[in-house]
């Protein structure tokens, strides 16, 4: 946890619309995206958002479809809060925080229909491709949702589909891309004091009382997740959605550079 002095500084500065790291209220940190960083993965990306760093890998396995969607492939998104990335993270299976965040990332990919799951069907009811998107935190300084969503998109964009030869999965010399349809991004907003800030650092997250993450695709809202102990007003909600749509255009540019 953060000390009281830092908390006081964050709140005092925000009264004048300033932040501890010199950013404006509606400003993202520097973003760096690197793709194809793990040759063993079918797709991969390393994203740096300020001091937050995530490593995302996409693996594609052969599996059986779910009974309620026999002709569709399977998408699974996981997040590991690696204990090396932050002294407050402990080893062990994912708990509340990791599970919530991975489900929010999953929602943006799924509801944004980023992966055309119908094209992942090999034999209806029997054989489909299962796409695993695994996010690992390498260094944590807040705002995992936005960093991980960028990473997931960059990894999916560059991911290749394995081949099936005599029921054997071949992962060498892959050419066919994963069926990816458009891109979505997320912007996370926090209410700290009476201000709404975007792309929070860890200290800002510790100081905040409410959070809203917004997933956007083609200017439309595809995922929402509120969090924190206090609510937000109608006006604040409206402000956040407008800002999320605006930010999505800038975030997409980082992905399209790839």
């Amino acid at each position, binding site marked *: 946890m953060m000390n009281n002095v830092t908390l006081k500084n964050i709140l005092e500065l925000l009264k004048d619309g300033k932040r501890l790291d010199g950013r404006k209220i509606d400003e993202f940190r520097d973003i760096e995206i690197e793709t194809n960083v793990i040759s*063993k993965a079918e797709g991969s990306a390393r994203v740096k958002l300020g001091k937050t760093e995530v490593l995302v*890998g996409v693996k594609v396995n052969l599996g059986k479809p779910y009974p309620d969607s026999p002709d569709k492939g399977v998408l699974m998104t996981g997040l590991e809060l690696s204990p*090396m990335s932050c002294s407050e993270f402990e080893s062990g299976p994912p708990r509340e925080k990791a599970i919530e965040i991975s489900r929010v990332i999953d929602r943006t990919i799924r509801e944004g229909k980023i992966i055309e799951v119908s094209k992942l069907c090999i034999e209806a009811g029997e054989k489909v491709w299962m796409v695993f998107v695994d996010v690992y935190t390498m260094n*944590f300084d807040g705002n995992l949702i936005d960093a991980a969503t960028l990473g997931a998109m960059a990894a999916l964009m560059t991911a290749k589909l394995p081949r099936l030869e005599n029921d054997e999965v071949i992962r060498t010399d892959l050419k066919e891309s994963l069926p990816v349809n458009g891109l979505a991004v997320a912007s996370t907003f926090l209410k700290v004091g009476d201000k709404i800030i975007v792309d929070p650092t860890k200290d800002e997250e510790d100081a905040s009382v409410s959070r809203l993450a917004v997933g956007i695709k083609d200017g439309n809202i595809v995922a929402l997740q509120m969090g924190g102990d206090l609510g937000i007003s109608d006006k604040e909600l409206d402000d956040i959605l407008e800002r999320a749509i605006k930010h999505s255009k800038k975030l997409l540019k980082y992905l399209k550079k790839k």
Partner: protein
Amino acid sequence: METKPKYLYKNSKRLDGRNLDDYRKMKIKMDVVPNAQGSAEVIFGKTKVTAAVHGPRVMHPRRLALPDKALLRAKYDMFSFSVEDRKRPGPGRREIEISKVTAEAFRSVVFLEKFPRTVIDLFVSVTQADASTRITGINAASLALAAAGIPMRSLVVGVTFGKIYDEKGVGHVAIDVDKPEDQWGMADVAYARAPATGDVVLLQMDGDMTKEEFDKGKKMADKAIDVVYKAQIKALKDKFEVSK
């Protein structure tokens, strides 16, 4: 590689073109995890491992703390996408065992008695696996501990060795085994030592080797260890040098 190759060694060359006593291209990157006290990434060929140290810090729960020295713990973690077939996240039996031997490799070299009642947490993350991951992790962990400023009697340096067969099925001793050699080879040995104290601190083997083959492999590995040791020292000197 799905089917067993006819040979792993032919015309004095290994499958990837190396000689028996060549180790793969090695790379060291320091301070890759800013939140940790010390961290390093070590790359051997296609094997990539990041190690990070947190501590010495307060032990939770307190009852696990040792009254007269620090507890050194290690967590070896293989990322799900680091291998050919996705690995389920979280530690399995293999990872728990490697975590144990990794922690033990460092307990004799770290001055644990300087930090009673605390814990030193060592995290070893395999981001890309192409065999020799535990030994690559040992080299990264040695650098991370030193970078954290934790006093040590010695760095710890490792190189694997193993036995690979030629087209006639005859075994040859080779160092720094890669994935096909690990998977199909006749023996492999994970080997690490503390050069400054002279002790062997990690040793695991599976397969089948004569005493002579073992001695030969160890000798070849010791030569490579000298080089890796110097590379570790250089990386640390570069990190701590005040100005150039």
